């Protein structure tokens, strides 16, 4: 007894019993919800574990990307146009309805499968990856999660098999401040249709798309609580006013759209009237993981291409990749790519498990876009002059990577999202 108490006095200052107990129970550190509810499992697994289908999907997409998309990448970038054969190939291989159920023509696979597909496509061409990502994680998922049965049955099968989708939220006056959107949707006196007026800006896939998800406000006096999501086909009156000429992902069409007294039947409302803002917030969380995957794939593609060259190009009697200085740089970038990959796949699995993943998704997207810039930039330098010429295709990765920090939530927005969680956790 005596021995024990004298020992403990060496380790910890003695507090009066009342204070000692209080110090523990009134601790201000609030554990994150998921730490407390994390289920205990028998066999912990590494993040390198995938189902058989996910592995087979990765194999198929990798081969498809290398064989079919690879030869066309340069031309698509120079001409700033997506090759229709590539889009058809995506449809034929079931990559445009990855999570859609089989009875609606989809592949009924996991969310992680979509992430894998985007990563593998981005290794070869980030423009194709973003087309597939927006179509799957934004357009398809909004309809699957919020659309009524009738809306799903009407729009999902075509989206899975032949029609490209586009997600229209941003406007000239509202980007990060999405809820300040000004496109209006006025309900007609008959109550049967809405009249849309406004413009949308920075809309991906819009030149190839036939199906559009458009966010408009049915009652501006209610502020963001009037925002409603509508689904429409191009022939209802979507007007492409301008196609942007961009620094990167040039084959992915980014357009300014005009809606001039466009009539949309009331059946085309997705989810509830006035609840569009919720759809927008929730869906962009998932989209973030998709963009993170695109950036990881981009970084890996640039890395692989550059290292293959560096281990062949000889100077001073040996491949330049064998110099220790180069090796250290390779190691640094490879570490960052692996970290970004793990962040991305973990966020994807958290979402699949139905657990909160907003913070992790923001971390993944933010980190992946930063390291993709660095990896692609280094990849150019490692290849020297060859990295700088358009013919080789390395510089394209660097140009493509810049958008990662900008779309689907700028880096500052991601940081603010993460900071909000931390504030809640640590504020007293």
């Amino acid at each position, binding site marked *: 007894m005596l021995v024990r108490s004298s020992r403990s006095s060496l380790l910890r200052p003695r507090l009066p019993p009342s204070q000692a107990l209080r110090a523990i129970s009134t601790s201000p550190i609030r554990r994150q919800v998921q730490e407390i509810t994390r289920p205990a499992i028998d066999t912990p697994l590494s993040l390198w574990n995938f189902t*058989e*289908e996910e*592995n*087979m*999907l990765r*194999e*198929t997409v990798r*081969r*498809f990307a290398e064989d079919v998309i690879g030869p066309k990448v340069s031309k698509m970038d120079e001409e700033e146009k997506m090759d229709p054969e590539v889009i058809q190939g995506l449809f*034929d*291989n*079931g*990559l445009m309805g*990855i999570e859609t159920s*089989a009875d609606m023509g*989809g*592949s*009924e*696979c996991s969310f992680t*499968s979509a992430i894998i597909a985007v990563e593998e496509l981005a290794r070869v061409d980030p423009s194709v990856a973003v087309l597939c990502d927006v179509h799957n994680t934004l357009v398809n998922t909004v309809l699957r999660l919020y659309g009524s049965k009738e809306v799903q049955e009407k729009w999902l099968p075509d989206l899975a098999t032949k029609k490209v989708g586009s997600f229209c939220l941003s406007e000239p006056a509202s980007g990060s401040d999405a809820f300040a959107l000004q496109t209006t949707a006025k309900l007609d006196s008959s109550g049967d249709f809405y009249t849309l007026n406004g413009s949308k800006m920075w809309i991906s896939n819009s030149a190839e798309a036939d199906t559009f998800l458009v966010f408009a406000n049915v009652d501006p006096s209610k502020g963001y609580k009037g925002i409603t999501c509508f689904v429409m086909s191009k022939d209802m009156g979507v007007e492409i006013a301008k196609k942007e000429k961009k620094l990167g992902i040039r084959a992915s069409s980014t357009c300014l759209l005009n809606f001039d007294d466009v009539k949309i039947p009331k059946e085309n409302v997705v989810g509830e009237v006035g609840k569009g803002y919720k759809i927008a917030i929730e869906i962009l969380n998932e989209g973030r993981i998709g963009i993170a995957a695109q950036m990881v794939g981009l970084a890996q593609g640039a890395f692989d291409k550059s290292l293959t060259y560096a281990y062949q190009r000889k100077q001073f009697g040996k491949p330049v990749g064998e110099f220790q200085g180069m090796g250290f740089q390779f190691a640094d970038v490879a570490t960052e790519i692996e970290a970004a990959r793990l962040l991305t796949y973990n966020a994807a699995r958290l979402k699949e498990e139905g657990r909160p993943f907003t913070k992790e998704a923001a971390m993944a997207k933010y980190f992946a876009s930063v390291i993709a810039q660095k990896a692609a930039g280094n990849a150019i330098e490692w290849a020297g002059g060859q990295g700088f010429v358009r013919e080789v295709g390395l510089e394209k990765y660097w140009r493509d990577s810049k958008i990662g920090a900008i779309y689907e939530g700028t880096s500052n927005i991601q940081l603010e999202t993460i900071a909000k969680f931390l504030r809640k956790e640590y504020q007293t």
Partner: protein
Amino acid sequence: MRPTLPRLVNILVPVKRSIDYAVKIRVASDGKGVDTNVKHSMNPFDEIAVEEAIRLREKKSTKVDNITAISIGPAKAVDTIRTALAMGADSGIHITTPENAVVEPIAVANALKKIIDDKKFDLVIMGKQAIDDDSGSTGGMLAGLLGWSQGSFASKLEVEDGGKVHVTREIDGGLENIEAKLPMIVTTDLRLNEPRYASLPNIMKAKKKKIETFKPEDLGLDFTPRFETISVSEPPKRQGGGKVESVDELVSKMKEAGVI
């Protein structure tokens, strides 16, 4: 004329899990083989075989009843069978062997003969060789054991209703056209077709297809190797060449190198 009964053709497609064609092969540390701790996939010639079987079914000029993919290999060979199923084969057979066990062509041929005798196949379409051992002998051995016709190095295959088969073979001198009757062995060459990708919906459908598993003992087969590999080494490094100005110089250099 008596009407010929429509013949349903049962196709067997042997597939092998071998080192992926894009991998840089390195000699293993023990010098008796190659480093197998690398990416594996279906032997490319076997992919062509699976594709040809599926195309025969799609052509409808042949009434194909069933396409069975079979693989003899370790546990991971199941992935190869699944890929065949995802491409369009109907069912699979897996004869399991211990990890890293060597299965020689004669053993494969005997195993295939047993399966064919038990389950009655009419047509075997297989790769002309596997890209790991390049032995190219299994097809011929199997034809011999069964006493069937063979059309090897096929670059074109046509099966008529009624069992007549036309095979265009790639040989050193050019192309050879042969005509034979089912049952038959066909081995595929590179230019036979361009295999399809296992599309995502087909990968999901493949999950429901059945794979039967056997051990060699269950079938009364003995896979004991008859050969022992003594050593494996890399080819000698290529020496740089040189330019010469005239034929005389060329001749004298060749004499120097001891080649004439």
